C-alpha cells in the first residue's frame, strides 16, 4: 500500500512540471501583455511601456523568465496578481470554497439521479425507460454547457421567475465566511432566509455543472450493472432465494460501483473545466470565473498559479479516489 502511494505521488512531479510549462508558455502566446491591459483604452507611452516591461522582467528571454518563475514556485511563492496586487494563493483560497461548494453539489446531484437511473435502465433493459434514459443522457453529454446554462436561465429565471440569475446569494445578506461554504455559513448565521437564498442560487449552476457527470455516471452504471447482472454470483444469489431488491441493490450494485467510482474520479477534472464555464455564465464568484477574468487581463501570475493549484487539487482527488477503491473492491485491498 505504501509503495502504491509512493509511486502515485512520484508521478505528480512530472505532471506538476508539465502544468507550469503549459500555463507559462500558452498565456504568453496570446498577444498583448498585462501592462497594456492595465493602461486600458487610453493607451500608454511607448517609453513608459518599455520601462514597466523592464520593471516586471518581461524584457528578458522567456526561458529565463520561466526559470525565475519556477524557482519562486518551488520556494512556495506563486506571485501576486498584477491587477489587485494580492498574493495569488490568498485570492485562490478565498474563492476556492465557492467552486468546491458548486462542484460538490453538482457531483451529488449527478450521483443521486445518475446511479438510480442507470440501475433501473439496466434492470429494464431495452424498455422505453432504458431507451429514454440513454437518449437523454447522450443529449446531456453532448450539450454545450454555456448554451444549456443560458437556456435554463431563459426558462427558469426570465420566463418563470423562479430562480436568481447570478451570484451566490441575495445582496441583502451579509454572511461572515466561517467555512467559506455558504450553505453551512448561512445556517450558522442568524440571518433569516439566507439559507434558502443560497440554495436558490445554487440550483441552476448545479444542474448545469452536473449534467455531463450525470450523463456519464448513468451510462457507466447501466453498462457496469448489465455486466454484473450476468455474473455467476447473481445466479447464486437467486438460488439462495434472496429478494430481487436485495440482489440488485446489494449483490449487484456493490460490484457495479467499482468501475463507476473510477469514472467519478475522472469527472473531477471535467468538473473544474465545467466550473470555468458555469461560473462565468452565472457570475459565480469562484476560481473558474477568476481564471477567465485573468485571461482577459493577461494577469500572468494568477493564470499560472491558478492552473497549478487546480491541477494539484485534481491530482489529489484522483489519488484519493484510487485509495478508496480498496474500500469497495476487496481484491485490490488484499493484493497490495
Amino acid at each position: 500500500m505504501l509503495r502504491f502511494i509512493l509511486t502515485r505521488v512520484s508521478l505528480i512531479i512530472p505532471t506538476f512540471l508539465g502544468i507550469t510549462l503549459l500555463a507559462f508558455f500558452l498565456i504568453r502566446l496570446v498577444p498583448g501583455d498585462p501592462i497594456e491591459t492595465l493602461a486600458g483604452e487610453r493607451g500608454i507611452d511607448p517609453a513608459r511601456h518599455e520601462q514597466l516591461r523592464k520593471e516586471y522582467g518581461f524584457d528578458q528571454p522567456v526561458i529565463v523568465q520561466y526559470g525565475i518563475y519556477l524557482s519562486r514556485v518551488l520556494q512556495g511563492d506563486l506571485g501576486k496578481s498584477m491587477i489587485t496586487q494580492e498574493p495569488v494563493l490568498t485570492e485562490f483560497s478565498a474563492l476556492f470554497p465557492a467552486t468546491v461548494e458548486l462542484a460538490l453539489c453538482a457531483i451529488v446531484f449527478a450521483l443521486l439521479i445518475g446511479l438510480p437511473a442507470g440501475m433501473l435502465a439496466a434492470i429494464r433493459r431495452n424498455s422505453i425507460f432504458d431507451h429514454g434514459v440513454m437518449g437523454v443522457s447522450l443529449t446531456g453529454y453532448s450539450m454545450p454547457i454555456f448554451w444549456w446554462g443560458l437556456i435554463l436561465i431563459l426558462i427558469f429565471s426570465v420566463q418563470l421567475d423562479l430562480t436568481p440569475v447570478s451570484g451566490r446569494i441575495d445582496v441583502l445578506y451579509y454572511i461572515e465566511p466561517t467555512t467559506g461554504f455558504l450553505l453551512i455559513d448561512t445556517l450558522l448565521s442568524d440571518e433569516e432566509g439566507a439559507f434558502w437564498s443560497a440554495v436558490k442560487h445554487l440550483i441552476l449552476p448545479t444542474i448545469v455543472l452536473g449534467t455531463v457527470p450525470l450523463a456519464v455516471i448513468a451510462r457507466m452504471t447501466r453498462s457496469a450493472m448489465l455486466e454484473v447482472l450476468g455474473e455467476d454470483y447473481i445466479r447464486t444469489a437467486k438460488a439462495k432465494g434472496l429478494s430481487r431488491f436485495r440482489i440488485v441493490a446489494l449483490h449487484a450494485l456493490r460490484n457495479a460501483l467499482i468501475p463507476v467510482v473510477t469514472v467519478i474520479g475522472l469527472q473531477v477534472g471535467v468538473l473544474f473545466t465545467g466550473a470555468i464555464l458555469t461560473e462565468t455564465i452565472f457570475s459565480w464568484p469562484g476560481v473558474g470565473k477568476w481564471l477567465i477574468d485573468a485571461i482577459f487581463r493577461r494577469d500572468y501570475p494568477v493564470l499560472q498559479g491558478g492552473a497549478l493549484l487546480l491541477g494539484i487539487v485534481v491530482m489529489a482527488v484522483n489519488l484519493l479516489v484510487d485509495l478508496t477503491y480498496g474500500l469497495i473492491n476487496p481484491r485490490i485491498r488484499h493484493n497490495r
Partner: protein
Amino acid sequence: MALLEIENLSVEFPTQGGIMRAVDGVSLKLDEGEVLGVVGESGSGKSVTMLAVMGLIPFPGRVKADKLTFNGRDLLTMSEAERRRLTGKDVAMIFQEPTTSLNPSFTIGFQLAETLRLHEGMDRKAARRRSIELLEQVGIPSAESRLSAFPHQLSGGMNQRVMIAMAIACNPKLLIADEPTTALDVTIQAQILDLLMNLQKERNMALVMITHNMGVVAETARRVMVMYAGQIMEERSATDLFASPQHPYTAALLAALPERSEGATRLATIPGVVPGLYDRPKGCLFSPRCAYATEHSRNVRPELKPWAGGHIRCHYPLGDPNRNAEIQADHPVGAEAAS
C-alpha cells in the same frame, strides 16, 4: 409420494432465428434421499432442466410443464415470493465454477449468514455460530477465521466447500449439483465428491448430480438419466446402465471412455455434433449420428417407453432380440452416417 415430480417439462428460449428448445418433454420422478445422475454432452439440456426446477430460467426463457411439483407443492402456480421461500431452503443448488459463483465483494461469513438469516430467521450471533459449524462440516480448517475471508483468498476447492456449506445451510430436501467438480483439480474432485456423498447419506437428502463425466456418475448415482438435445434418451439404474446400455447413444458414450479403449490406437468417438436450432431432425434426435439409423427412425420420433427396468427413447433398443430384423425391414441408413 415422490419428492420431485416433473411431467413433460419444456424450456424454450426465443432467439432471432426462432424458438430454441433447450429442454424437450422431460419427465422425472425423484424420491426422498435418492441420488440421480444426469449425464449428457454440453447443450444437452441437463443444467437447464434443473435450473427450471430452481426457478432460475433467465428472461426471456419460458418454462412449460404438465406437472412440476416439489414435496407435493405445485411449483407452476406458486407465487414468486412463495417460490423464493422454497429455493435456497428446501431446494438448493451448487454450480460449476465455485470461484465466480461467490460474490467477490462480500466475505464468506456474510454470504453464509445471509442464507441463514433469510430462511431460518437467525440473528447475527446465531447465524455466525451456525456458519462456523457448517464450515467445519464441509471440512474447512480454522473455520472461524475463514468467515472474514473473501472468495479470492481461497482456492477453488475451498470455495466449492463454501458453496456446499451455503447450499446445505437450511437442511434442503433436494440438492442439485451442477458439474460440481468440473473446474477443480483431479485430487480435489475426489474429495468434493466424497464430501457430497457423505452429506447426502448423513442427511438423507435427495441429490441430483449433473455431469458429463461418466466416472463421477458411476461413483455416486444409483439411477442415471442420459440426456441428448433436451430429451431423455435412457433412464435406468446405474449398475444396469453401465453393464448393458440399451440406447445406442449411451453405448456410444460409454465406448468413448478412455478406460474402455485400452489397447486401441484411437479413442472411440461419436461422429457429428448435437443438433442446433436449425438442423433439428424430424425423427429421432440422435439419428444423424446413430450407427443404426433407418428411414423409419429418421422420420418418426420415438417415444420414451418403459424398457429393461427403466425408460428408453429408441426404436431399436440394443437388448431387443428382434432389432436386427426390424432395422433391416426399416431400410438402414446408419452405415453411411457412421462412415
